[in-house]
């Protein structure tokens, strides 16, 4: 039962996010816009590029959707409203999101087009920049919660949300999450205006619709992960638990989508250097600081 509810709210969330994306990125608010755009994509021709690697080309978007859904499966919307409350939830989230890299490289390699290929390999470089900054802040979250279960991680924040307990980890995680979801200014693999859409360049019609849907699901999963790990998940006064989850997830997703409007794209070399010189040092310091606090303060 709760599986069905989560899947339906995922569909509603993906639609709401598509509306918000139009608003945040292009500046016009239209409630029916995404529906028409999806319908138009369905009716458009879906071409297979010449000399393409058919298996990779077809599997890329589907694997991306699977990865997003697996990540969503361990995110609680309310204490009982979760698809699977795995004991290793936080680790499973990492494992699921690792396939985003695989799927994007498959999608870039598949059509045998120069733009897509460059975009796919670029994402591998981006992965090396963001990957450690996803897992290291989560370690500090697990240290406080003494568990990897996402439900218990939310419960551990009853006294104080992690965004205040470990603000450094929060900032690192959100930036890395934006890199993982290739959101501007960290949108190297689709770099609109520079790589002609990059990974998306050779996808048309219904295949592009699946790719875009998968990306929405991944953004929702990462906003959900941010809310679960740092913003107290379903915790909040007056409103029911699921409402707090929904509000927080959509606000975080909208914030992540709109950053790109105010910042230029960051070059791969610069992103790598920043992540490893500044990011990793801060992430290690974060683990140490949280370690000391967790031993001294009993919350």
């Amino acid at each position, binding site marked *: 039962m709760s*599986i069905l509810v989560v899947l339906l709210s995922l569909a509603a969330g993906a639609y709401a996010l598509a509306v918000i994306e139009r608003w945040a990125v292009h500046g016009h608010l239209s409630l029916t816009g995404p529906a028409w755009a999806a319908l138009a994509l*369905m*009716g458009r*021709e879906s*071409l297979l*590029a*010449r*000399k393409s690697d058919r298996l990779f080309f077809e599997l890329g978007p*589907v694997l991306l*959707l*699977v990865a997003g*859904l*697996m990540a969503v*499966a361990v995110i609680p919307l309310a204490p*009982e409203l*979760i*698809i*699977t*409350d*795995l*004991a290793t939830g936080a*680790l499973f989230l990492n494992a699921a999101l690792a396939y985003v890299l695989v799927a994007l490289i498959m999608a870039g*390699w598949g059509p*045998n*087009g*120069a*733009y897509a290929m*460059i975009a796919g*390999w670029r994402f*591998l*470089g981006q992965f*090396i920049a963001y*990957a*450690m900054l996803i*897992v*290291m802040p989560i*370690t*500090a979250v*697990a*240290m406080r919660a*003494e568990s*990897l279960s996402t439900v218990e991680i939310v419960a551990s924040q009853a006294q104080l949300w992690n965004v205040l307990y470990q603000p450094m980890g929060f900032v690192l995680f959100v930036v890395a999450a934006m890199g993982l979801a290739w959101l501007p200014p960290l949108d190297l693999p689709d770099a609109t205006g520079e790589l002609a*859409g990059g990974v998306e360049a050779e996808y048309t*019609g*219904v295949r592009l*619709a*699946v790719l875009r849907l998968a990306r929405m699901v991944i953004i929702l999963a990462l906003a959900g992960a941010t809310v679960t790990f740092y913003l107290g998940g379903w915790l909040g006064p007056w409103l029911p638990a699921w409402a707090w989850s929904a509000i927080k997830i959509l606000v975080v997703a909208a914030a992540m989508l709109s950053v790109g409007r105010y910042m230029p794209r960051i070059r*791969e*070399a610069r992103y*790598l*250097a920043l992540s*490893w*010189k500044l990011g*990793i*040092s801060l992430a*290690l310091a974060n*683990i140490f600081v949280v*370690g000391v606090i*967790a*031993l001294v303060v009993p919350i």
Partner: protein
Amino acid sequence: MGPRMSELSQYAILFGLSVGVFGFVLSLYGLARAIGRARAEPGKDVPATAGTLSRDPVWVRYHARYAGYALLFLAFDMEMAFMYPWAVVYREEGLIALLDMGVFLAILFLGLLYGWSQGALRRQ
């Protein structure tokens, strides 16, 4: 969902969902096909480059210039495999755990600094 389900049934659900995604995508493709098919026209299937097929395979154009980072990444990624179980029992073990991992992380961080000094943190 009540008390925590058995691990096996949880993974069965996840597997079922993954298979369900394939079914969902296939039905979308079927729907799109019912609306209309791609017309076969010459030149339509050339990748968006400059209107012609490239002479060489396209992968020869890209050089992975982040090799130095990639090697360091391997070391750090291995380290994370130890960090997660450590993080769960951290508060139970107390100061000993902090010192144990502190030494480990200090050595790793020195490795990062050494790599940095040798120019590994640079786009080759």
